[in-house]
Structures are given as C-alpha cells and as structure tokens.
C-alpha cells in the first residue's frame, strides 16, 4: 500500500508555499428571523484575494494593523482554517488535491509559533511532554533524540537542564524558545510566526529574532513573519507584504519598502512606528480612525475613504500591478504612486 502512495514532490524547485486568489470569508451570524425571511448572509472578508509566493530559505514579512486579516492568512496557510476560495500549493501540490497521506505530510511540515509564550504552553506539561506531543501525534520514531536536537536548535542547552522544567519555572524568553523547539521538532519546511516577540522583554527580543533567522537559513525553511511593527519586520524579513482589509496592497524587498514605501497605507504604517531618536517628536498621524468594517467594503480602492491622496480614479479598484518597479520586485495597489512621490 505505502508504495503506491504518492509522497509530496520534494524535488520541486518552485516556491515552497504559493497561494493565488486566496479567500477566507466568514459568514456574519444573523438572527434566525432574518434567515427565515430569506435575508442574505453577509460575510466578513478577512482574506480577500491574496497572491503570495514564499521560497525556501526566505522569510516573508506580513504587516498591517489589527483586523487587517494578517493572522487569519497565517492560519489558513498552515491549515488551521479552511480557505473559502482560491488555491494553496505546498511544494507545487494543490492542497485540495492532496491524498490523505500527502495531507499528513503537509501538516507535519507546516508549523506555527504563537505570540504569547505565557498562554501557548500547557502549564501542567513538562518541557519534554510539550515537545513530545507533536511527535506522538505524527507517530514519529527516535523521539528522545529528536527532542534533544530540537532543544539544542532552540539554544536551550544543555537540553537535560530544561527537559523536566515546567512553564512557570522558565523565563519569557525560555518559554518562547520551548515553543520554537516544539514547532521545530517535526522538522517543518514552512513556519508561520505571528508576533513571536511582542510579549517578550526588549533585552531578549533580539536573541529570539536572531534564532529564528538562523533557523530559516540553516534548515532552508520558508517562513511568514506576521507583525504590526515594521521595525521588527525589518530585522527579520527579506521581502514584505503590506495587508489592508484582506488584501495585499504593497509588496517588495523589505529595505526598499522601508526606505521608499509606495502605497499611502504603507507610508502611514511606517510613519506611525515610533523611532528611538529624541529629535523625532511625535507628528500628526497620517491616518485618522480605524479601518472600516470588512463586511461593507467601499467601492473601488479599499483604502480610499481613509486615504489623504484619494482622487476620482480611486473609485476603480487598483490591482498590485497598478504600480511596479522596472524589475517587478516592488509593487503597490495604488493608482497615484507617482503623483504622491512628486508631492
């Protein structure tokens, strides 16, 4: 039996993770009366047509404010949520068309590192139990050896000092390292890290960021790094996508995007990051208010109602090809990039 089953294509040399037109729409709960009289169900469009390709050894940054859909996108990529439209390809194989055994392989190879090391660890489990659990779920061999190796990779050395500890005996940095060890123990090829350092003290953040960056390099993984803070994204990511109301509105090499953002939303997001420089006093925010309800999206460009540069043409929806650099690496879904650049 096992022989006839097709395993995933490990020789595939395209992007490790590729999504096209990805959608995740949540039905709004409406009252029973509303449903009885045949009212239409409205949808929250958390992810609304995202194209993204992440290569092995690459960390893609995903930035946007709360509620922009970035965490939902991360959850859909690793199969924690079912998409409602579009396609996800892992190693070139469509998720929908995977056999049961390929699905299992997929699940073992995509992992998540969560934001809060205080809540994501089970307080009753020892470090060993916590890291062993995924190995049990996937029925892996050589478990002890794998646990030791994962702890070493997460720089919890020597492993025997940590293996019997419980979460309350560990510092915040150590807990996040345990979460990382748990995510790594299955030797995944793709990880999603959702604000992995925002709950940690400043003095340990850099060590966790450096660790993640080295792991992506050494293990040749693909990674999606989710944050609302471009200063953290800058430390971690080769390329960055900016998300607003379920759509990617700008994408480019991270340094290029930070030095010269093109979409007005990316400009505002960058401007809002406080800078550790006293000559830089807090300036008037470029954006007022909060994103509109993703149920009733505005006509044309989603950002139009909040955009200080909106014009007549913005009633037509721009795609990511509305602005592109010559090499095509840096793109923004905005009609007015050149006008705004010249202002």
């Amino acid at each position, binding site marked *: 039996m096992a022989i006839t089953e097709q395993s995933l294509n490990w020789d595939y040399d395209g992007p490790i993770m590729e999504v096209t037109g990805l959608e995740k729409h949540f039905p709004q709960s409406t009252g029973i009366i509303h449903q009885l009289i045949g009212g239409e169900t409205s949808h929250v469009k958390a992810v609304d047509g995202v194209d993204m390709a992440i290569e092995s050894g690459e960390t893609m940054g995903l930035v946007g404010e709360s509620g922009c859909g970035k965490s939902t996108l991360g959850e859909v990529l690793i199969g924690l949520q079912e998409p409602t439209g579009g396609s996800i390809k892992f190693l070139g194989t469509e998720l929908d068309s995977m056999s049961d055994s390929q699905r299992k392989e997929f699940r073992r190879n995509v992992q998540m590192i969560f934001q809060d090391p205080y809540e994501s660890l089970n307080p009753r489990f020892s470090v060993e139990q916590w890291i062993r659990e995924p190995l049990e779920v996937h029925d892996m061999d050589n478990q002890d050896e794998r646990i030791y190796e994962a702890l070493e990779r997460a720089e919890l050395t020597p492993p025997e000092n940590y293996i019997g500890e419980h979460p309350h005996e560990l510092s915040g940095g150590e807990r996040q390292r345990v979460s990382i060890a748990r995510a790594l123990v299955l030797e995944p090829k793709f990880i999603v890290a959702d604000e992995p350092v925002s709950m940690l003290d400043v003095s*340990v953040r850099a060590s966790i960021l450096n660790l993640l960056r080295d792991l992506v390099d050494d293990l040749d993984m693909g990674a999606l790094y989710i944050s609302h803070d471009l200063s953290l994204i800058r430390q971690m990511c080769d390329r960055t996508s900016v998300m607003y109301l379920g759509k990617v509105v700008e994408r480019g090499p991270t340094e290029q995007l930070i030095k010269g953002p093109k979409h007005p939303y990316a400009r505002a997001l960058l401007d809002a990051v406080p800078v550790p420089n006293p000559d830089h006093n807090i300036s008037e925010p470029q954006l007022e208010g909060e994103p509109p309800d993703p149920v009733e999206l505005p006509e044309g460009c989603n950002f139009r109602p909040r955009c200080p540069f909106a014009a007549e043409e913005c009633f037509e929806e721009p795609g990511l090809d509305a602005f592109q650099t010559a090499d095509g690496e840096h793109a923004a879904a905005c009609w007015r990039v050149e006008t705004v650049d010249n202002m």
Partner: protein
Amino acid sequence: MTLLEVNDLHVTYAGDPDVEAVRGVSFTLEEGETLGIVGESGCGKTTLAQAIMGALPDNGRITGGEIIFDGQDITHLSNRERREIRWERMSMISQSAMNSLDPVYRVKDQIKEAIQEHRDVSDAKSYERARELMELVGLDPDRVEDYPHQLSGGMRQRVIIAMSLALDPDLIIADEPTTALDVIIQEQILYRIKELQRELGNSMVMVTHDISVVAETCDSMVVMYGGELMESGNVDEIFNNAHHPYTLGLQNAFPSVEGEKRDLTSIPGSPPDLSEPLEGCPFASRCPFAAPECEETVPVQEPVDGHRVRCHEPVPFEQIRDRSGEDETWLSQNKV
C-alpha cells in the same frame, strides 16, 4: 516649579517572602514636564507609578522615603485623604484600564460618575462635560450613549483618557497606555495625549518598556532595573550620551525603521530576585563590564548637570559605549 518629588522611595509587597519592588528611587518632575520611566518587566516601574498614585495593591506598602506632591508630603496619607487628591489632582491611564470599563453601564454614566464622585455637579452639567471630553480625545460625542463592548480597543483607551482628564488634574500618570494597541492606534493616542497636554498644561509620568515612545513623547527619563534607578536625565542627553551599560544595552536592543539597518544586541541573563536583599549594582550579574567593586556599592556619577548615572565605570564610558553595540560583548556573558 517642581510638581512632584520622589525621594529615596522604597516599596515592599508583603508575602512569603516579602518582595522589595522599588529600592530607593529619587527623581523630580517639573510643572508641564513629561517624564518617562522605562525598564523591562519586573523592574518596578508600575509599582512606582502606583505608589505615586496611591493605588498600590493591598499587600503593597511604602517602606521608606517620601513623595512630595505640590509641596505636600503625601507619602503616608490616609485612604480618605488620598482619595481627595486622586482623580482631582492626579489621575492614571493604565494598560489594563481599557478592559476595566464596566460593561453594563453606558460610557456617559461612567464619565459622569467619575465627575460626580468628586464634585457637586448636576446630571445635565456632567453629561455636557462627558460629551466635551469625548470630543477632546477625538471621539464622536454621540458615542457617550454606547456600551464599552460597542467600542474598539483604541476607542476604549480614549474613553479612559477622557475620564482621566475629567477633573483637569495637574498630573497624569500613564502606565503603558498604548502597549496592547497596534502602531497606527498607538500613534493616534500618543499624539492626542501630547496635544492635550500642550493645551491643558498638565505634567505627565509615562511608564513604558518602549524607549522609542519615550524618545518621541518625553522631556526627561528615568531608566530602572531591579527596582533601582540606573540612569536619569533629559531625553536628549540620555539618548545621545548614555553612560550606563544597561541603558546602552536597551538602546542597542531596540529596532528602528530610521537610518541604516543594524544588528540588534540582546542582554543575556535574567533580572535579580527582588525577594532577596542585594548588595551593589542589581545589573552586575548581567553586565559585561562588571568589576568586583560592582558587587559591593553603587556610586552616583553626574557627567553633566542633571544627568545621573549609578555606575562604577569599571572601564571608561567611551569604551562601554563602543563595545555595548557589539553582540559579542554581551554574549561573553552566560546565555539566557
């Protein structure tokens, strides 16, 4: 005019064992000034803020030193006397306050209560004031009719700010006012707080772990570690001319979107156990420059007027400054 003076303040939490969370902190705050208190979790910054506000948890006691507010010693006031000052003359915006609005009362009733608790004002007048305050913090006045759950996190935090301003206090203590919010909302709220301060002329203490927030919003700052003050002075001086290895460590650990990208350093090790008495500098065990004398005493140095550094200077400060930017310097210490 000095509005607030904290002298050699000690705060202890009773327990088994007792924890001395603040260990001899001194600073002054001038009228109209904003002072930042920065440090990492467990450094005592929130305890310090609560002690000034007279809002320590039940097992917390001021065990030494004094707090002088507007010329009056308020260190040991009774609860009733404190209540008169609280909200009237000093108020607090805290990180958790956003979730402390009562879910069953409309916003207007909660603001009205804050006013009428202290002042004999009619319902109609306080309702009017509630609407005015909403406008002041950039919210639609009609939203006073809302219940807290109808507001977003950022809006709830604005309501808290509105309440803290209700009685026009001289001092506002903001404890991580924007920590749970994303950068866009954070910028809106910090900008609004600063605008209001300019208009109303009150003083402020900003407690935060985020040195970039201090850089953008404060005039002076205090860096705390292990319950003690490590370095203090005006913000320009501390950012451009920091002397203390811990301050430099924090600055080098902090990412920025400005300038050229650089590698960040981290500070291995963990903060001291505050249930134990401590000789010498609390940072010594994590400090790559520590010398034997650091385990015994902590001298105060004053490189320029108003800039205080509690450090032995085991190697010259210029060297500390250069070497603290390199990760190897810190990694020569034990790992986290």
